[in-house]
């Protein structure tokens, strides 16, 4: 049975005269990887901002059966949707471990009274969270960075940190904004392997990417955006054959 985890209908967002997103509709089936491609300025990041609540637009967004287009970002995140940013946003003045341990939902120690009155329970939960963070760091092969300040990490390591941190909230869906951009080829291969492994475990992804070969390899379906509109949608093989898609890319790059 097919079930859409996210469906977006007639989404619009204008900045002054610029129609960044201009009537887009997409649906993502649970447990799949959807690639979102398109030339620079096509509106991909704006689409992410709308879906994750960082921008308000017109249109309907339904995530896991809940209307989320009027919710604030933190509520959307609590529904199980987590995003990364195009330019990685590690919390540089905190350690890698703190970055990860920040993320889990419903921590007892986030309530003042529990901090003072139930310190033992808070400590126990902290230990569980630390265990979990170690497992996730191990998965992303950055255990050795655990106690480093995130500010000391390289650009690629920050991308891994962001994905690891996102995993800490047990999301049902991850939005990744250009996970391969500015990353060396070895690391890029690793990142696509991580995505595939998480995909096998049932995670849903929406991945923005510029690099067509890289994205077609990991995606189940691909949406192509251009000038705020969805211009094509289909399986990677179909998309690769579409001449108009290639032309937009060549035009956009040139």
């Amino acid at each position, binding site marked *: 049975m097919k079930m859409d985890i996210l469906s977006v209908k007639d989404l619009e967002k204008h900045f002054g005269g610029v129609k960044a997103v201009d009537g887009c509709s997409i649906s993502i089936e649970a447990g799949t990887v959807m690639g979102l491609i398109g030339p620079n300025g096509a509106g991909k990041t704006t689409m992410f901002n709308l879906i994750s609540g960082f921008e308000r637009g017109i249109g309907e967004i339904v995530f896991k059966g809940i209307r989320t287009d009027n919710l604030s970002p933190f509520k959307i995140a609590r529904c199980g949707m987590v995003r990364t940013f195009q330019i990685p946003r590690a919390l540089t003045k905190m350690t890698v471990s703190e970055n990860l341990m*920040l993320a889990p939902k419903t921590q007892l120690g986030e309530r003042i009274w529990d901090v003072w009155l139930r310190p033992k329970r808070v400590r126990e939960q902290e230990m569980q969270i630390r265990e979990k963070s170690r497992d996730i760091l191990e998965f992303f092969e950055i255990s050795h960075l655990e106690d480093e300040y995130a500010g000391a990490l390289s650009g690629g390591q920050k991308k891994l940190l962001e994905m690891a941190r996102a995993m800490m909230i047990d999301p049902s869906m991850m939005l990744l904004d250009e996970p391969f951009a500015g990353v060396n080829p070895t690391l890029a291969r690793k990142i696509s392997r991580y995505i595939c492994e998480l995909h096998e475990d049932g995670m849903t992804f929406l991945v923005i990417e510029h690099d067509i070969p890289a994205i077609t390899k990991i995606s189940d379906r691909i949406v192509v955006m251009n000038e705020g509109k969805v211009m094509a949608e289909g399986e990677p093989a179909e998309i690769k054959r579409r001449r108009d898609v290639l032309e937009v890319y060549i035009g956009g790059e040139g």
Partner: protein
Amino acid sequence: MIEYVDMLLPYITTILLISSIYAIFSLGLNLEWGFTGLINFGHVAFLAIGAYTTVMFNMSGFSLFVSVIAGIVLSGFFGLLLGIPTLRLREDYLAIVTIGFSEVLRFILLNEQWLTRGPFGIHGFDRPLQDVIPYQYYNTFLLILYLMILVIVYFALERLIRSPWGRVLKSIREDEEVSSALGKNVFWYRLQSLMIGSAIAGLAGAMLAFYISYIDPNTFKPIETFHAWIIIILGGTASNKGTIVGALVFCTFLSVTQFTSRFLPFTAHQMGAFRMIVIGLLLIILMMHKPEGIFGKKEELALSD
């Protein structure tokens, strides 16, 4: 020799008393600015609310304990009131609103004489255990009491900022969008920080009132807010230990320069200005050599990038 000791002890007691009050006052601001990144330029208002509420409650017949609690709660409540409209907006709104609030409050305290006795100020309220402690030992008693309060406030804050709650604050200080992308209700955490910081300032206000046993609106001039800022920058932003040391250094400096002013050809007014110049220079030198303050962590320097 004995004579000097007799003179020196009360002098040191006074410095430590003032330091402990400033330390608690500044710990409140350090929670707001140091750990949450909130810019509060009207922190003195909460010192005033704490002092006036405590004193007025006591004058109308409530026990000291109840009065102090009322002062703390009301200061926290005003933090909430100022926070609700401002903390969803850009950070400079809080700065503007708090600085305005602290001046408006001072004028209300000056002009609503039926309530506050205006410029005449209030005295004649109770002080803790004043009937039990012999007069000549009273300041020593107060010092012990205040140091105990300081220790309690310090450890309560340390536990908080080392908890997951404190971790959320630090994440907001650095990048609120990341915190919200991870499901944290940024607005609510900021509000809590401002409320607790203000409540702590309220406690300091009550302590100040008991120590000087007389309060008037001019006790609460805007300069007091900036003294707290100087103290936390000096001691190291986002370090509670640093804030306490900063308060001690700052208050010692103030009183030593007051003492030495006899040997300088300045009027009282000129001396005040001269002190500020010296403090400014010292801060500049400190910032050049150790921008994170005495106890701050370089990696967490809130002022960088």
